[in-house]
């Protein structure tokens, strides 16, 4: 899996959670999406961990500045045994 493939899979999750369609790009971040508040964020993270089968470590999700960095984090955690 590469970053683009992760973003494509994220797109499907975002489409479920958000009512208004959002087109994900590596540069997009929460502040660009009106519906992406702290409430939907919790929902998104639970869905991402479940769908990708990963578990983020404490505090690291908030360090990701945009979707590109978030996708990289998912890849990093997926490569763990």
């Amino acid at each position, binding site marked *: 899996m590469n970053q683009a493939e992760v973003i494509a899979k994220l797109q499907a999750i975002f489409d479920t*959670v958000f*009512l208004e369609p959002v087109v994900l790009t590596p540069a997009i971040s929460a502040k660009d999406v009106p519906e992406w508040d702290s*409430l939907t964020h*919790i929902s998104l993270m*639970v869905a991402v961990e479940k769908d990708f089968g990963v578990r983020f470590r404490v505090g690291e999700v908030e360090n990701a500045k945009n979707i590109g960095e978030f996708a990289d984090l998912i890849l990093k955690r997926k490569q763990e045994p």
Partner: protein
Amino acid sequence: MDTGPLKTLLLSNDPAFWAQLKSLTKSARDFADLFLLSSLRKKAHARNLAGQNPSAKPLRFAILGGYSLYPLHELIEHLSELDGRPLELWQGDYDNYISEIMDDESELYAFAPEVVFILPAERRCTYTGQLTDPRAAQQAEAQRTVDALLDLARQVNAKTGAEVITTNFMLPARHDLGAFRSRSLGSDWSFRKWVNLELGLNAPSYLHICDWEFLANRLGGLAARDERSWFESKQPCSSALLVELAREAAQLVAALKRAPKKVLVLDLDNTLWGGVVADDGLEGIELGDTSPRGEAFKAFQKYIASLKQRGVLLAVCSKNDLARAQEPFQKHPEMVLKLDDLVAFKANWEPKSENIRAMAPELNLGLDSFVFVDDNPAEIEIVRQFVPEVTTILLGPDPSDYVAQLADCRLFEPRSITAEDAERTRQYRSDAQRQALAATVTDMASYLESLSMESIISEFVPVDVPRLSQLINKSNQFNLTTHRRSEAEVSAVMHDPNFIGFSVRLTDRFGDHGLISIVIGEKVGESMQIDTWLMSCRVLKRGVEEEVLNELVRLAQARGCTQLAGVYRPTPKNEMVRDFYGRMGFTLTAESETQREFALPLATFQPMPTKIKIIRRAYEPS
């Protein structure tokens, strides 16, 4: 969970959105799913989508505690709203609950909540000394923890009159301390167990325990916790348990004002025993300790008998020949349930929907207090379609799961078990005997005379409050105003000098009917306004109505009133008392869609004669 169709409904502003949201919410167990549903609900409100409970008045609900209450409050709001009870929320600050409760000036009190939900901090429920300290010292600290919580609840209740819900504490799920864990009250394991027990056993009637220990245990200790979510956002527990906690809180809020079901209607073949009695014969049915399947059916009967013990009425509805259907009850040695455990027995070839419909007037109960249990999907379906008021339970394929299905149905949970609940089957059965007597006595007056009725009329007293609130919240038919009141609200009436409140108990030679009528009046000037007048339909036309009026007049006159003012507020269920005040000699003074107002001048009132001997009257020394 597929939310695609739901989103389509929302985007096209279709009010069918709400019904689908409700059904998806009912089945959602996953945190992310429930959360998504909640955010769709909020979006629907933002779009002003019509169709959701326009008339329901929001309940003022405050939530505070030692955790971040977001998003828990969101889930509770969602579940409660879709259960027909929208909430107006007030949320405390993170870990500020003690000062929010202690400080009379806090926003909590400005909000004037009707229900307050407290989640006390787990980290304050721990023994601060050594594991090896004397047990007395450890116990004293545990007791102080309990007392502090009870005191917080008492303060909230005293300052607001609100019902209070508090969580207790989850137990640790790690092996820490090993076997020593249960040998010292100083371990979190033992300390919290002790606190939880004492808290529950000593909770006053306005305090309801949201049993977090139980919920975590049910889910599994390891699955209940999520340390990361504590460090990141001060979440109280794992997201999986958060869903269960929210469901329990919503359930407790609903239970404050909604009565449990009253009647359990049972199928026979493959429900109470294995096999078909008409085909297999008395000896051929599977029941009892000789086979595993027979044991499972017997265990199910034992569980049903325990529901009866709690006050649930049992009835049978079976497609069968009556004599064949009754034979196991009379002759099978392994039957737990006997014919006299049942208040109705319908075994015939009519549709079950019609049989159940016929039971309601016989027992003087509304159809919505019935639950029907059957192993046959076709029978469940016919009842669902033709008597939709009845709640149905379709038993699964394995009789060893039957008990679990009923035990998890959440329809028969008592708020507080009163001695009268256990007596109820006897009361309903002696009703049948009384009706038999009525058939043998020719005129009504001599029938009533022969009943040797005695009555005690009492002002509201603290020991009656749970029973009073129970009756106020479940009585539908003979209820002039259907004004519901929680235990705290009943207590408030008891202490307000402008109000009178009394209850009536009735006995006759067949048994004790218990507390069967409640009246609340408010003195406004020289008028006694009848705020609440309700009565159990089991004692209709026995003279209780007349005695209640006599008592009302007496109390009103003693307080300087010159008239009684009564109001009838129609509901789908109280048609029977639409003209009640007229029958009692009141004059109709005003009428609208929503109410009919009546008045009765007291100067010319003559006490009405009855056949009831009044042993004691309200507000008089006994």
